């Protein structure tokens, strides 16, 4: 399986690199985003501090973690569906399906480069934050952050695989995933603590895995939280994974069979 994933990575990296200018410019957004939020943080100054007591940091350090790791949520939600649709529209899906590799592996493999790319962006965000701005990661619980990341990716990916299955049947659904992604950005604690939201929105935010993922990441990296302090969020992420992951496999399998039945597996 790892050899197969590597083949997908090599394919997509080479394709990405063939668009040299676009590849280089894709990183420029990180700089603009980081600088923008740095100056916003300068604007708020100490006024934001009461809301960030749990983390003991300024707004910039708080938000840069959210922005960096939100990439995984957005990717998880839309990445698999996008990979599937791209292979349908480019006509490569049929060629791939004519190999012994299951459709589920094709979709996962096709999204792998996006995860690698997102990880590179996260590293750049963190490096930028520590080298140029006020982000401090001394005392961070990096292992805790890694476990949080893995559970987050699994939970987000499960939602994404469900979305890919739905899109395989209905063929278009980017608007739905985009709406969901935007809503999660609003109430998921990406740009501000969820505690400042009205109570009814906090209820909704408690239902989203991104809320726990971002909080666990911040506690790990900014506070150096211990395992016992991380456990509540990690357990919720684990619960999301246990429920969503098998569900996603069932939904996706159904979608593939349905598409084979109506002959639309490679249609778009």
């Amino acid at each position, binding site marked *: 399986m790892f050899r197969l994933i590597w083949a997908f990575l090599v394919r997509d990296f080479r394709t990405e690199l063939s668009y040299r200018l676009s590849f280089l410019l894709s990183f420029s957004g990180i700089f603009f985003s980081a600088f923008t939020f740095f100056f916003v943080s300068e604007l708020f100054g100490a006024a934001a501090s009461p809301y960030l007591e749990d983390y003991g940091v300024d707004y910039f350090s708080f938000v840069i973690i959210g922005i960096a790791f939100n990439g995984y949520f957005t990717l998880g939600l839309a990445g698999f569906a996008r990979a599937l649709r791209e292979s349908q529209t480019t006509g*490569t899906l049929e060629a791939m399906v*004519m190999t012994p590799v299951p459709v589920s592996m094709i979709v996962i493999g096709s999204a792998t480069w996006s995860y690698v790319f997102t990880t590179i962006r996260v590293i750049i965000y963190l490096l930028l934050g520590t080298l140029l701005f006020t982000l401090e990661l001394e005392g961070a619980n990096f292992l805790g952050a890694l476990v949080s990341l893995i559970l987050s990716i699994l939970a987000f990916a499960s939602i994404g695989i469900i979305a890919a299955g739905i899109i395989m049947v209905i063929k278009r659904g980017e608007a739905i995933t985009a709406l969901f992604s935007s809503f999660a950005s609003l109430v998921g604690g990406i740009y501000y603590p969820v505690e400042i939201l009205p109570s009814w929105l906090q209820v909704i935010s408690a239902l989203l895995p991104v809320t726990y993922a971002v909080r666990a990441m911040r506690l790990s990296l900014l506070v150096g939280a211990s395992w016992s302090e991380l456990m509540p969020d990690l357990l919720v992420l684990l619960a999301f994974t246990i429920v969503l992951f098998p569900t996603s496999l069932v939904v996706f399998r159904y979608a593939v069979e349905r598409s084979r039945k109506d002959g639309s597996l490679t249609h778009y």
Partner: protein
Amino acid sequence: METAIETKQLTKRYERSASWRSISRYKGTTAVVDVDLLIEEGELFGLLGPNGAGKTTLVKMLCTLIAPSKGTATVAGFPLSDSGSIRSSVGLVVSDERSFYWRLSGKRNLDFFAAMHNLRGSEAEIRIREVLSLVDMSADAEKPFSNYSTGMKQRLAIARSLLHKPRLLFLDEPSRSLDPKATSRLHELINQLNIEENTTIFLITHDLAEAESLCQRVAVMNQGQIQVVGEPSSLRRQLRPKQQYAVKVGKLDPEVFASIRNILPEVAIESTNGHENLQFQAGEEDGILADLLTCLHDNQVTVYGIEGYPPTLEEVFAHFTAQERFEDESSQQKAGADV
């Protein structure tokens, strides 16, 4: 000899989906109806049919891309339910140049698909070199796919389908969009695969000359059904056992006319520019042509030329597709009259 493909009542019906569209008149469509086929290993088999006959749907069912509604099939010895084994044993070539990664070279495209077929390291490299050599693409392998001509793209598609040494190769109109030279090279390759590698070839084509020159047996498909299966020569004889003749002679006297009509009551005689053209059908062994030539000789009629036209595959194709079209139009007219 082992069986490469066997189908029993293979059917595909696309049902009307239960949705708001149910208020429309669309009642679903049956693309493939009760297809029974038996193709032996090592055969070069052709499937002919007009557009919309169900040929591609049939092939996609055999490749497990589409699930059948009814019936069974075994492909390369595996039932359709064993899609992994079937896909490991067959190759599919479609005339879709979009099925490659245009920003990558031909070689890098094959690297990826070799990995998809679980070919590794030096094994993959050797096999890729072999298939590139087979399709005469070795010199162009490092060029971006986007720079390839249509013929080169098609050859790369064939190379890709051969990476895993399939026992059975499906070719869906492989010579469409190819020029005559490229088509000729393709035909040489198909024959080479069939003869030297004993690969079973299932060829979908509109080109009757291609089917006639390549295929050991052909099937004609129309409106989802197999109309006829057989060797091209036997199908031709089955449709029209006799050969069509055209004999060009000098002017004929009334007495000679009468003699000829005695021999050939249904002869068609056409006068042009001082000559007579006699058109008739005769079998190879019924002696009618010999009798006619003897009559002409005895009456000192000059024979300027004799041409024989054996029944063609085109006639077979037209017969089995036009008949159903006629019946279809008749039923549509009748339905319109009823409304």
